């Protein structure tokens, strides 16, 4: 009998998928645990993270932002990874696992295109066949990343169903997987989906928090008072939170997208405005109407534009261990400008939500407090969109 009910975070998570996928999830679960217990696998993973991704990523101090906030702000620089975001930490791990399992065809979904690019990149590196599903709306918003994926040899399949964004791309990737489950491996891009994905993606991403923790100890001689990260599906946040969860004095803050306002009905704040429900294989907070239909999300940043959220965040929220807040589209734009001008770092629009929240909550900290922000990605991918929004460079 399979261990389907394992892989829960409190009541959240699980495996709400078509029966066809259950044996594949059992196989994946076992293969992941085996791989992580295997020295050779870990050495290969560490080697790639160091020599291909460019880890460890730096921890930058942020003197001018620190002055403005009135606390010691530290930036964990996932924007400096190869391909420009944290997403590659996960795709390197999962692609290695796929290869070990003998699955040479890779499927992925993407929203902003960062996960798609990170998947296409590692597939090129390993010579794996790569198909990326992307909503038509996101293809329009993130042209540059579509071009990058194609340049890397991936097939980008436009998804025209539903809202034509990340949620529909994810559904389409799952349909592909159900159809080609024998020879294909689905590299999911966040801590979402059926077990074991949320745990597996968290473990691959927790390199962010492990490094940041030792860098903080080395540089500041103490743990941060607050750790802040943006939350779409929640992988960069889980990655930086996870190694701090047992450090009860460290506050964990996840910043969701408030879009046009938390009460506008046009946002992506699943944890703050959603109700528990089932989407893409897991029970978690979900934007939905009273009939259980999924409510489309909205965010200026394609990477946060998702109506669901990883089940472990739902657990951290309900248990009170993490706090979830939200930042609007407009404030995120200001956050992007702020970090650009004060620190010479143009963050991704997703990351900009975390920056903006710290700036808006300066009264929380005293000058000696350390605040650790996950800079999940760089903003190059967003420049074309910013110019169409009329955001002046002045």
């Amino acid at each position, binding site marked *: 009998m399979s261990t389907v009910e394992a892989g829960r975070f409190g009541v959240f998570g699980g*495996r*709400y*998928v*078509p029966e066809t996928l*259950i*044996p594949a999830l059992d196989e994946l679960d076992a293969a992941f645990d085996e791989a992580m217990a295997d020295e050779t696998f870990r050495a290969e993973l560490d080697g790639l993270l160091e020599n291909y991704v460019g880890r460890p990523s730096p921890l930058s101090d942020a003197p001018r932002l620190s002055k403005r906030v009135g606390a010691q702000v530290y930036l964990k620089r996932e924007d400096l990874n190869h391909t420009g975001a944290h997403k590659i930490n996960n795709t390197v791990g999962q692609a290695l696992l796929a290869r070990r399992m003998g699955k040479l065809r890779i499927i992925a979904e993407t929203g902003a295109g960062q996960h798609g690019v990170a998947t296409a990149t590692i597939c090129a590196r390993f010579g794996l066949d790569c198909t990326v599903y992307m909503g038509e709306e996101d293809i329009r918003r993130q042209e540059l990343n579509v071009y990058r994926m194609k340049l890397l040899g991936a097939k980008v399949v436009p998804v025209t*169903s539903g809202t034509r964004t990340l949620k529909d791309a994810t559904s389409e990737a799952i349909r592909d997987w159900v159809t080609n489950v024998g020879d294909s491996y689905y590299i999911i891009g966040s801590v979402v989906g059926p077990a074991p994905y949320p745990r597996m993606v968290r473990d691959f991403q927790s390199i962010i928090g492990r490094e940041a923790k030792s860098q903080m100890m080395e540089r500041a001689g103490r743990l941060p008072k607050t750790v802040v990260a943006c939350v779409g599906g929640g992988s960069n946040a889980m990655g930086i939170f996870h190694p701090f969860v047992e450090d009860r004095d460290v506050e964990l803050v996840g910043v969701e997208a408030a879009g046009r306002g938390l009460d506008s009905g046009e946002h992506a704040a699943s944890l703050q405005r959603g109700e528990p429900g089932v989407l893409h294989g897991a029970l978690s907070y979900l934007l939905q109407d009273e009939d259980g*239909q999924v409510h489309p999300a909205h965010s200026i940043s394609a990477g946060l534009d998702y109506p669901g959220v990883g089940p472990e965040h739902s657990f951290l929220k309900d248990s009170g261990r993490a706090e979830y807040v939200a930042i609007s589209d407009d404030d995120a734009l200001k956050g992007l400008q702020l970090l650009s001008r004060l620190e010479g770092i143009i963050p991704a629009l997703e990351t900009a939500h975390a920056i903006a929240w710290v700036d808006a909550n300066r009264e929380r900290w005293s000058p000696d407090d350390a605040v650790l922000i996950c800079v999940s990605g760089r903003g190059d991918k967003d420049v074309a969109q910013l110019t169409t929004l009329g955001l002046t460079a002045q």
Partner: protein
Amino acid sequence: MASTSTTISSNVDETFAALRQKKKRALVGYLTAGFPDAARSIECLRALDEGGADIIELGVPFSDPIADGPVIQASSQRALELGMTLERTLEIASAAKLRAPIVLFSYLNPVIAGGPDILERAAAAGVSGILLTDLPVGSDSAREEWLSSGPLSFIRLVAPTTPVERMAEIARHGSGFVYLISRLGVTGARTTAPEGLTETVGRLRSATKLPICAGFGISTAEQAKHVSQLADGSVVGSALVSAAAVSPESVSRLTQELRTAIDS
């Protein structure tokens, strides 16, 4: 773990008992509730019923149907745009007054949103069974227990990838019949016969005494006839939904063709 199947005989059980007596195979037809609109949905259901379907699967439209191919996806999206809900699906079930037992075909989320009395309300609307595409056996014992102890037959699914020990486990936790997904993939018409179906049905037979109905990708009379030689019933979905997009008469014609082929 969820409790074993209910022993009270249901409409679904009676239907299969009657078919067995007549040495006939079942025609199971699927239609999406509220497609192409609420009124025509009822007409199409009646056409399916009168055309000779033994069991009618009534699809509850869901915004994110991960187990469905393009035809059922599009029909669900259209039905939702026109305001279809689980509540209205029950109204359709009740208004249609069908001879054949109705099995709700749904994703879990709308059923959870329906509240704790949804199964009783569905039964009161004349629904006999329920099948959930995304609640595999062992995935959520509390909800599975709720479903298997309720008033509806709880139809579970078996896939071509399911190992034989798990087949037995699945069958033990279901009632009515076992829905055998006949091929890897999502719902939708295919031109070829499902590969390896003989072997899969054979394995499933060794694991359960429940009737076996095979579906996914069965669209023509010829395919239905082939499947009927192996399983106790054939499920036809997307082809009927495509017919419903044209007219109730098309549903009627296709149903009769399928019926004739299965009985021949």
